[in-house]
């Protein structure tokens, strides 16, 4: 896994609430057997019209907005457990998703793929949206070691991140690396269940 530490970028706003994983990547694009290539179908049915033309009003088709940070309305990633949603976001180039609320499985999937989900308050989210609205090129910075999301327009948010997952992101290792080292404990647990 790629390490995630610090980044500064402009942000893409998607203020809709309850964006489910079927919107992030519709089921008909889940037929792949590798993790690559899902980015081209990210938000597929919002991005393209029926005629497969780019939908004019959708933010990913608007050249004014770009960047590695996606800012979304509350309850982002609800619905299916498909990790393809995280792969699609990562493949498209997003490294950070900011929302006031994340669905549980999505959050875990994101962290397992080097995407940092940052939970902010409702008011903070509104402030971020309004900064982007005022200036689509507004820059935002993420400092994972210090758990801080900020910019030079007065934004300063300290965010929570699970201590163990933070270590994983900072060092680029994953749960399997960790678990494989615990084989003896796991076997001991199994033995204990037998008695």
């Amino acid at each position, binding site marked *: 896994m790629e390490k995630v530490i610090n980044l500064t970028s402009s942000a893409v706003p998607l*203020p*809709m*609430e*309850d964006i*489910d994983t*079927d*919107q992030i990547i*519709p*089921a*008909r694009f*889940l*037929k*792949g*057997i*590798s*993790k690559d290539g899902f980015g081209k179908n990210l938000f597929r*049915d919002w991005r393209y019209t*029926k005629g497969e033309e780019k939908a004019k009003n959708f933010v990913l088709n608007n050249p004014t907005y770009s960047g590695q940070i996606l800012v979304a*309305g*509350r*309850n982002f990633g*609800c*619905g*299916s*457990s*498909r*990790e393809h949603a*995280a792969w699609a976001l990562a493949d498209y180039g997003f490294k950070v998703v900011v929302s006031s*609320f*994340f*669905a*549980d*499985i999505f959050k*875990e*999937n994101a962290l*397992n*793929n080097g995407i940092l989900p940052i939970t902010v308050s409702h008011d903070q989210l509104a402030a971020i949206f309004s900064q982007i609205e005022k200036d689509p090129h507004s820059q935002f910075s993420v400092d994972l070691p210090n758990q801080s999301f900020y910019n030079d327009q007065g934004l300063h948010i300290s965010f929570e991140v*699970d*201590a*163990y997952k*933070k*270590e994983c992101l900072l060092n680029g290792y*994953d*749960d*399997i690396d*960790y*678990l*494989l080292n*615990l*084989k003896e*404990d*796991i076997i001991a*647990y*199994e033995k204990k269940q037998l008695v």
Partner: protein
Amino acid sequence: MFKKAQTLFDKIWSSHIVKDIPGGRQVIYIDNHFIHEVTSPQAFAGMKKRGIDVFRKHQTLATADHNVPTKDQHLPIKEALSKKQVDTLVQNCKDFEVELYGLGHQRQGIVHVIGPELGITQPGKTIVCGDSHTSTHGAFGNIAFGIGTSQVEQVLSTQCLILSKPKRMRITVNGQLQKGVTAKDIILYLNAQLTVGGCTGYFVEYAGSAITSLSMEGRMTICNMSIEMGARGGMIAPDEKTIDYLRGKPAVPTGEQFEKLVNHWKKFYTDADAVFDKDVSFNAEDIAPMVTYGTNPGMGMSISDLIPNGESESFAESLKYMDYKSGESLEGKAIQHVFIGSCTNSRIEDLRLVANFVKGKTKSQSVNVLIVPGSKQVEAQAKAEGLDKIFEAAGFELRQPGCSACLGMNEDKVPAGEYCISTSNRNFEGRQGPGARTILASPLMAAAAAIEGKIVDIRKYLN
């Protein structure tokens, strides 16, 4: 075994802790793992790359369900990508020696239907699958939840996950259900009351007389849609019904060993003075047959209600997508498709309920009706009971098992702009096909709509 007052969840969780790790997470042992073709290929690929084998082969079971045709399952899959995905599962199961109930196998079916049916799903266990509706298994009093593909790989490699303990919530529903109101209506009602993110961060236990009076099938329908409120999972304490259901199932031992197991199961209940982080209750009498009007399962209402007003942009977008307006009733609205299936409502009891209602009736000319059984066993049982004949006479098409139009990965899709009343669990935009409009309801409500060609109040058809 257990000390101070504990919830059912706490008892199972604490007996599965392998290790506490710095930062507050815990390594949790997983008893059973179900896999399917869509969320497993990348996990196996990862293991091949790392050169690791499946750690406990007998604790994993595979089936093909999400991306399989529901017609002519004996023929090679036509669509190339789908064929490749199903073939990859077959190959991976062969390479890693994992048992597979693939296409054509008499035990094949939707993963959450076959687990209970085989008796693998048992009280007190931890069960995972790369699918959010794994919560279904919780109806038997276990901790069952959906995981992502990275976690599938972790479980395959080590039989463990590194988790933070969710908060505990109890939802109590007491009282007697009205005529025409089913388990599906209870859960759609709870979805509407608690909203789509209302239980995020919690693991839910369902309790109360309206819950315990349900059959195991009904309980599975309830637990199934826990995830629709954002819950990590749902569970119901085991009782005599649970034991009766499991007795004699293929994976359940018999004789003295069974009695021993039952004694073990009986330890799993919430102590009278155990405390939940959140405790809510509802009255069964308040629940009517439900329908959804929007594009998430929390946007549901009683069939006699009118579509409410909503302020957010998302709410407006949702009604626009459905082409419905605030203040409208859904009663009398035309539908073109009826889908009876999915891990929410495709068990034999659902099919019996539908058959019982449609016997002697025929479907409206203007609708297509698809019935997709949850498993080969359900299919065989339906045929043995002659339900297939009833469906045929009514003009309902009985297909072969799979997820089908629940997620529209195969060719069973609803065309853009058309309406489908569906017994599945998600009415998200495009869920049943690009542009498809889904109304979630119970099998009874779906059957009545099939006959009338429009949404009706089932209560008016029952005497």
